[in-house]
């Protein structure tokens, strides 16, 4: 691996995949930044869609196509919808809300920057010359993934379905109104999770 890495040119000669990856990555990062900084709550959810979608493209570039589609289906399709439901059910204000960030912002900024600096330094230091060979047999095709999943990961997979069932029941119990109180509006919190698990299970 080190030999092949050494044989390839360094950062100065990026391939087309790399350029694409970096550009998409910048877009993803920008969307993520907007997600955590925008003052409009609904926009945050929409920017999250962009970020997650960008990540799906990155997965594709890394030849993990099945993961990419799952990402689009679950995250972009259900999780964000779920979050939007949540925003609406909690009567989140539409439009700019001046108090979207808490007073903890400066501390959070410091911690995040410090963590970013430390991690970037470590990661760059460790993987400066590591080369990922994207050619050859695709790692993440549906075929390969399904084979490994049902050959090597059956038991965790089934255990995961139990976990999902538990989460389902838990979400229903938590969001259920007390007996006698009218309305069942919040059962929506449980049902999208249900649909998500259904998709996942299939």
């Amino acid at each position, binding site marked *: 691996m080190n030999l092949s890495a050494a044989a390839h040119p360094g950062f100065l000669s990026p391939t087309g995949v790399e350029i694409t990856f970096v550009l998409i990555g910048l877009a993803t990062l920008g969307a993520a930044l907007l997600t955590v900084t925008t003052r409009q709550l609904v926009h945050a959810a929409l920017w999250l869609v962009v970020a997650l979608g960008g990540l799906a493209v990155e997965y594709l570039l890394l030849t993990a196509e099945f993961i990419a589609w799952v990402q689009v289906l679950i995250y972009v399709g259900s999780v964000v919808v779920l979050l939007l439901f949540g925003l609406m059910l909690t009567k989140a204000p539409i439009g700019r809300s001046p108090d979207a960030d*808490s007073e903890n912002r400066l501390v959070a900024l410091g*911690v995040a920057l410090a963590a970013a600096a430390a991690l970037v330094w470590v990661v760059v230091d460790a993987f400066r010359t590591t080369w990922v060979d994207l050619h050859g047999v695709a790692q993440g095709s549906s075929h390969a993934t399904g084979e490994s999943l049902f050959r090597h990961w059956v038991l965790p997979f089934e255990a995961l379905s139990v976990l999902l069932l538990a989460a389902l029941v838990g979400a229903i119990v938590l969001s259920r109104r007390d007996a006698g109180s009218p309305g069942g509006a919040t059962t929506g919190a449980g049902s999208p999770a249900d649909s998500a698990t259904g998709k996942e299970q299939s």
Partner: protein
Amino acid sequence: MTLTALAALVPLLPFLGAAAGLLLGRRAPGFVRPLAVLPTAASFVLAAVTAARQGTGAPTDAAHRLTATGSVPIDLALHLDGFSVLIAVLVGLVATCVQLYSVSYLRDDPRYPSYAALVSLFTSAMLLVVYTGDLMVLLVGWEVMGICSYFLVGHHWETEAARAASIKAFLVTKLGDVPFLIGVFALASDAHTFRIDGILAAAAEGRLHHPTVVALLLLAGVAGKSAQFPLHTWLPDAMAGPTPVSALIHAATMVAAGIYLVARLLPVFTASAAALAVLAAMAAVTMVGSGLAALAQDDIKRVLAYSTIGQLGYMAGALAVGDRDAAVFHLLSHGAFKALLFLGAGVVIHAAGTNSLTAMSRMGSLGKRVPDAMWTMGLALAALAALPPLTGFFSKESVLRAAEHASSGDAAHVPSAVGWTVLVAGLTAALLTAGYAARLFLLAFRGSGPDAPDHGRQPVVMTTVLWVLAVPTLAFGGLTYRELPDWFGGAPLGPTLLTSVLGTGLALVGVLVTYGAWSASSATRMAVPVGAVVTADPDAEPALVEAEATATHQEVYGDIAAADDPGDPGRLLLGRLHPLAAHGFRLDAVYSALFVRPVLAAANLVRFLDREVVETYVRAAGGTPRLLGAAVRRAQNGNVQTYLSALLAGAVVLAVLVAVGG
């Protein structure tokens, strides 16, 4: 009944009486008086029977070991010999008289039950001290007496004087008791036993390693209990207690215990010439100083208190010259006449309504109001002044004879200088004693002026007791000085010509000089009336009258001890020494400056250190965590994001540290 059982009953009966009196005192008031008098009287009879059966025979020893007590065993030991049985008889006699007298003297006192029980306990403790053959058991009696004296002196605790006096008595005697305790332990560790006969055997064989140190330590306790210089200051103040208590303490019990102890342990003291010299110096200073002080006192009971100190000085002097026979002889005779003097003084105070000699000297016919007291006290004062043929003459002559014997160097172990010291001091004290005895009699009973208030006849019990005690005062010495050497197993005690002539001559000189001074100052007395004579309610019980008189003395005369009376013969005799002597040579002031004030200052310092410094640390120890807690509590604001920020910041710091450091 065996002799041992008989002797064991003697201290036990008053003890049981005291316990029963304390238990039944409130519930059955009718039993209190019998319970006070009968056990003590029975104990007196038993003591007399014990003395008769013991007689002049060999000492009887009996011991019972209750339990093993470590390295040095402690026995319930009984030791009967001539000394102990005779002193026990004296204690029994005086205690019985005091109990009888108290029945009348404190007839209306609401605290009489506890008072009588304490007197019984006191008696029991003294009898235990007298009979025991073990130093540890002796120490028990010794300390019980100390605490009983505290309670009894403070009987009138409503008055400031009584409270102060009781605390002073307790503290001063305890001051001596601490070295005494150490001395007892040192003695026992040398002799490997607490038994007195074992210790004496060890002393005879020279097995005591530090006789001087031990003897000096014991002397400190003796000086405290027997009121010798420099620890005598509690005794005059102890006059704040009721008169019967004074009689008990002074005549037979507490102060006698110290002398008795030295007499029992005399071989330990004679093993060290230095200890004897210290004892002699103590005795000499005590004799002369107390005589001078007694001449200047205004309170009749304080005169007697100083005379007690002086007579104890005689006994200590006799012990210093190595003659315990003479010391115990004087102890016995002194016990009889001093008890009489105090009980008589109680009658006089009751009759006169005051305890001030100055006031009494302006009262006509006081002697006629209380003839019994006058005659018996006259006898006792003559005995005190050692006029023949009264008992005091014989016992004091035996002391002087022993001193003269030692001064010529004839006594073994005793340096002749010690003998000379005691002899000279004894003769000087004889002069002074006669002087203050005469002054007391003349001022109290030969006053002139308005008649004393008429209180009617004094209670029969009280006067009877005076006459009972007058018998030994009159006859004890003369009848027994030939027999006593058999009991004590020692040298003859009879008076010799030289000391008799010297002592009696000096006593007569003292009496005559005082009489002359009294006559000379009588005109002054007539001219200067006393500002205020406080006379208490005549129908009150005697103890109340006395308490009131003691309490008001300071208000009226400006001082508790002295009165500003230009017609006092003592003032004429003492001259410029008078104010000094009246205040006990200002020894209390010296002690106050030397010990009390530094201790108080140190206590203040300690209090300051404790309140301000130590307390600050304590407060800081409590306050710092509280402040820290408040600071930490502020961090607990419930905001999960803050918590998480701190958590993650910490994680980043740790990761960086690991990355950099690793």
